[in-house]
């Protein structure tokens, strides 16, 4: 009843959930690195862009789909480890503002390298397009990719939760996120923890790249940039200092993006970004410490 009133249909709802799931993964990827390095990685979108280009090239070269996806994972992981080695590592200990501007520079750099190498028109990533076909679920047609995105995101988050709570590496990461110096004094190996965070963050970027490229079909050098800005806003909205809050923030903004995109009348859909960012500003003003955080200072960050 309410759904019909808002011009909201089940497929729109599903695509909102799907986008929310992908954004939640990206939020975790950004949040993990922030937890251990205190660095907001603006270049996260360019990791996704690189992964999407890898997929597009994979299908152009006639790779089977599993090989394209593997190639995408390889490229994204290699790039994130490289980024950590070349940029994040030398910047460790600098002020947060310097690190933020530096990742902004890396994002700009990677985007322009892609522009130089692949041109502004981009490549089509058609191999996985079959996933846009709908499934008939009880008389409602829902795109396969929407279901797959939701399930994959939930699975990834569950595995991460188990990793963080049930393994020594997870314990070390949580300790490092709470207090890096004390954790080191107690024998946590800084480099291993940081590499772990960077690699998991890269894995999530690769998964997001696969999901997003199915929905967008054409990969251009600015692929993922707008999504990253929204996710960053979502992460800060949710509360960067708590992992669950950051994830929920990412999910919320993705969900809002998907729903509003489907609900807005066609002649107003170009104002979707304005609407979303206006909501971001309002929420930030009301809850500057995050929507999903409670008071108290000693909180875990990963």
């Amino acid at each position, binding site marked *: 009843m309410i759904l019909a009133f808002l011009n909201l249909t089940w497929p729109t709802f599903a695509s909102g959930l799907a986008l929310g799931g992908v954004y939640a993964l990206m939020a975790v990827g950004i949040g993990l690195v922030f937890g251990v390095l205190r660095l907001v990685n603006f270049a996260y979108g360019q990791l996704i862009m690189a992964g999407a280009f890898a997929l597009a090239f994979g299908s152009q070269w006639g790779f089977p789909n599993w090989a394209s996806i593997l190639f995408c994972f390889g490229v994204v992981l290699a790039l994130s480890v490289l980024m950590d080695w070349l940029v994040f590592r030398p910047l460790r200990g*600098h002020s947060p503002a310097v690190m933020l*501007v530096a990742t902004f520079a890396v994002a700009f750099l990677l985007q322009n390298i892609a522009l*130089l190498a692949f041109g502004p028109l981009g490549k089509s990533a058609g191999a996985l397009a079959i996933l846009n076909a709908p499934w008939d679920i009880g008389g409602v047609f829902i795109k396969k990719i929407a279901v797959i995105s939701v399930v994959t995101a939930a699975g990834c988050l569950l595995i991460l939760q188990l990793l963080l709570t049930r393994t020594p590496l997870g314990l070390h990461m949580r300790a490092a996120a709470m207090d890096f110096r004390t954790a080191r004094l107690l024998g946590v190996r800084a480099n291993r923890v940081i590499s772990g965070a960077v690699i998991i963050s890269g894995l999530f970027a690769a998964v997001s790249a696969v999901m997003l490229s199915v929905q967008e079909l054409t990969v251009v050098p600015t692929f993922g940039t707008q999504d990253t800005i929204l996710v960053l806003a979502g992460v800060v909205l949710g509360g960067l200092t708590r992992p669950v809050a950051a994830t929920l923030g990412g999910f919320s903004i993705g969900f809002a993006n998907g729903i509003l995109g489907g609900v807005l009348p066609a002649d107003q859909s170009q104002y979707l970004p304005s609407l979303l*960012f206006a909501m971001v*500003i309002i929420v930030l*003003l009301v809850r500057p410490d995050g929507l999903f955080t409670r008071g108290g200072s000693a909180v875990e960050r990963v």
Partner: protein
Amino acid sequence: MNLVRRAPELLVPALLILGTALLGLAVSSYLQAYFLDTLVKVSIVVALYLFIGNSGVLSFGHISFVALGAWTAGVLTVPEDQKRVVMPGLAHFLVTTNVGNIVSLALAAALGGAFAFAVALPLMRLSGLAAGIATFAVLEITNNMLTYEQRIGPGLNAFSSVPSTTGIWQAAIGALICVVLAYAYQRTRFGRMLRATREDPAAAAATGISIYRQRLLAFTLSGALAGFAGGLYVHLQPLQAGGLHLDLTFITLAMVVVGGAGSLLGAVVGAIALNGIYSFFQAATNGVDVFGWNLTVPSGTAEIVLGVLMVVVLILRPDGITGGREFSLPRRRPVADLEKARATT
């Protein structure tokens, strides 16, 4: 005495601008475009510096004020008969209103300042990442509106038919106005109070400084200068909403940070140096002669060089080329003398 010692702080940036302008007069009109562009970038970067440098708070939103200034000055100066061609959807009262070059620049500054004030009223309560994201949101909203709102401008099209009144003198005088105002501001008690909040917010607040009010004032002033710079920019070349977005935000931030965010000299040096390098590589896409050796690079190299340069400077010299210091003459009394004097008393 103090005046003599302090004078170079303003004179050196001013001379750098004049030098750029004079070089621009000496070269061919094809190359002059790069010098004009550099002078306008100096204005934008100095506007950005006024807030970021003095407050120590990053803003990703200043290009919105540049864009609003450009739109203001552009809409009000396109000749009336051209308006219906360039901007068919323009609101009626804007079609019939026309002003001259100087008035359009003043209005651009006024609107830029008013917009910045309206934005800063709520946003300056935020700090840290929340503030950064909120200014980003302002940039996204402004860009989205200017791109699709045809009642206030050309929408997706380029801003053509704006009289190109930004010649070398207008560009140089504009940049000088920005530099003088920014210097005057940072020498007033308000500027000093804001700098105190940058160094130690808690201590500054304890001495009775309202961080919110000082940031509000600086943000508004810097928005006004940014609007003014936007006016200069639209009188220089046909702008597009897409060109006043992330790329320009990045390039101008890079100039502030690479030059040294802590000083006015840093902003001017950063803008001139980086825009010089950027222009060189842009010119090199059509081939340039370097000591008799022809250099041709693919387009896009300029951006890549800029990105690499910025990362390297941030890693090696996080305080920028100038280290955040103003220009000062070598001290006449070396430290050894000072210690001797101290020992005798």
